[in-house]
């Protein structure tokens, strides 16, 4: 079954200097439980594509044409209110730089608790606390009781990214968007986080759109791969097929 379908999506930025089309006529589908890797160089529009699906683009960017379907329902014209609901329950995102993505002035536990409370409004304090601990353990942080009270400055990049993932999981999302989640981490951490994401996919059965510019990361993560260049999605297919093709072309 397709969880997400994007048809002929174009996104433009309207600046004083004129219109810039960042995403051109992109179509793809995301199947339930699969990891779709969107790969391309910096500035090819993959991140804009991702943010336009969850509607987190700045005011100057507009979806020009195309439709987005989530679980068969069109969400292209959803209002901000409706999108908020979707973001809190079905869509989650992991960002490139965990140190700036976490609020520096709020304890990590409070930030996770906020996400849990948005999903389950009437939750009791006790249940909330145990859910936060559960999430921290789920993403592999040891000593969660102690960790929950700390601030992002006390965390290394890898640990901070685990917290961001915990926040993302608080919503029990159908789709997890991962926007270059390992780019800002060092190699060892990178491998750990990728492993964690794969493991979580197995455990929770969510689908994932994984954005990266790094082919090695793509090989490790992908069920299917979409290649982007200059705002266009020019190739999509099974991972093995595409990587074989690329290797073939390079030789």
């Amino acid at each position, binding site marked *: 079954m397709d969880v997400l379908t994007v048809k002929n999506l174009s996104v433009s930025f309207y600046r004083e200097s004129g219109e810039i089309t960042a995403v051109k006529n992109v179509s793809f589908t995301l199947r339930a439980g699969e990891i779709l890797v969107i790969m391309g160089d910096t500035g090819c529009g993959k991140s804009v594509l991702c943010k336009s699906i969850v509607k987190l683009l700045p005011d100057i960017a507009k979806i020009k044409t195309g439709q987005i379907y989530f679980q068969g329902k069109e969400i292209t014209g959803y209002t901000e209110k409706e999108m908020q609901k979707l973001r809190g329950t079905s869509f989650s995102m992991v960002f490139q730089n965990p*140190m700036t993505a976490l*609020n*520096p002035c709020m304890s990590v536990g409070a930030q996770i608790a906020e996400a849990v409370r948005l999903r389950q409004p009437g939750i009791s304090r006790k249940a909330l606390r145990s859910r936060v601990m559960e999430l921290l353990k789920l993403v592999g942080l040891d000593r969660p009781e102690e960790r929950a009270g700390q601030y992002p400055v006390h965390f290394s990049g890898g640990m901070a990214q685990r917290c961001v993932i915990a926040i993302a999981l608080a919503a029990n999302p159908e789709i997890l968007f991962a926007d270059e989640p390992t780019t800002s981490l060092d190699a060892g951490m990178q491998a750990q986080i990728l492993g964690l994401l794969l493991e979580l996919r197995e455990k929770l059965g969510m689908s994932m759109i994984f954005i990266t510019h790094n082919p090695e990361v793509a090989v490790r993560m992908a069920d299917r791969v979409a290649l982007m260049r200059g705002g266009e999605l020019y190739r999509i297919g099974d991972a093995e097929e595409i990587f074989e093709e690329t290797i073939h072309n390079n030789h």
Partner: protein
Amino acid sequence: MRKPYITIIDELSKFALSLFLLSVLVFTMSRLAPGDPLYSYYGDRVEKMGTQEQEAARERLGLHAPIPVQYVQWMKGALHGDFGISYKYKTDVKEVIADRIGNTLLLGGLGFVIIFVLALLLGLFCAWREDKAADRVVCGIGTVTSCIPEFWLSLVLILVFAVWLGWLPSSGAYSVGMERNPADRGSHLILPLAVVVLGHLWYYAYLVRNRLLEETRADYVLLARMKGLSGKQVLYRHCLRNAMPSYLSMMAIALPHILGGTYVVETVFSYPGIGTLAYESARYQDYNLLMLVSLMTGGLVIFGNMLARIINVWIDPRMSLKSGGMSGEVREF
């Protein structure tokens, strides 16, 4: 990470040292400036006094000794709580100040509280409506008010509300014999208070607005919105919270400026407060009065700066890893 109590001891000794240096500077400056304090004491009668009489008067007021000796004398008294007498009012300077400080605290204190609340609300409102019509209108009005010198605003308000409309009194803190009448005092307070508030409000509101706008551009806003929070909720729960440490430290620095900066307003409205005292004593060499007033206002400034630093280090988790930030700004990593 430094231990908090060490920071406190550190800051307190720095505070004492600053105050001491301030007293030396003010003492020396006031005595080096030309002008004869005898005029302050005797008024025009000085001109009729002979040289010998003047010398005797100087001797009595302790003004004949070299400046360092005078300073030590003053310091000895000050450490025992004796700050000398005011030349003009001929009584203990503490009494002169005690008579007036209530008025200034009322004007400056109330002004500060109003500015504190309104600046935050206006800043929030403008940040929320960034670049929309409402924001532009408020910014426009605010910029205009911030450009009006306090004394001229006072004059115009007197012209309109006292001279033309006759609604409000133009000077003093109360009408004769109505010292204890709150309504009368209130009506005397409205115009000076309006000037104090309008004179400072936009400066701080605009800083709050820009600080919040900086926050709205941070990455954590995206994560917070991804949780399902609305833009407004993110502004209140996240951006405001992060801007709060710098707002509080900013207002700690603002406190002495607002409280101690009322002298122009007090002068125009002939409002009997510390500001007018400071002005008189600086101009007419009322040394002892000048010293105490300067130490109070200057001490408040130093205290405000100290408070700002402590706020930065203590309540902002971003700062907790760094030792003592110098400036009043909070920086992100």
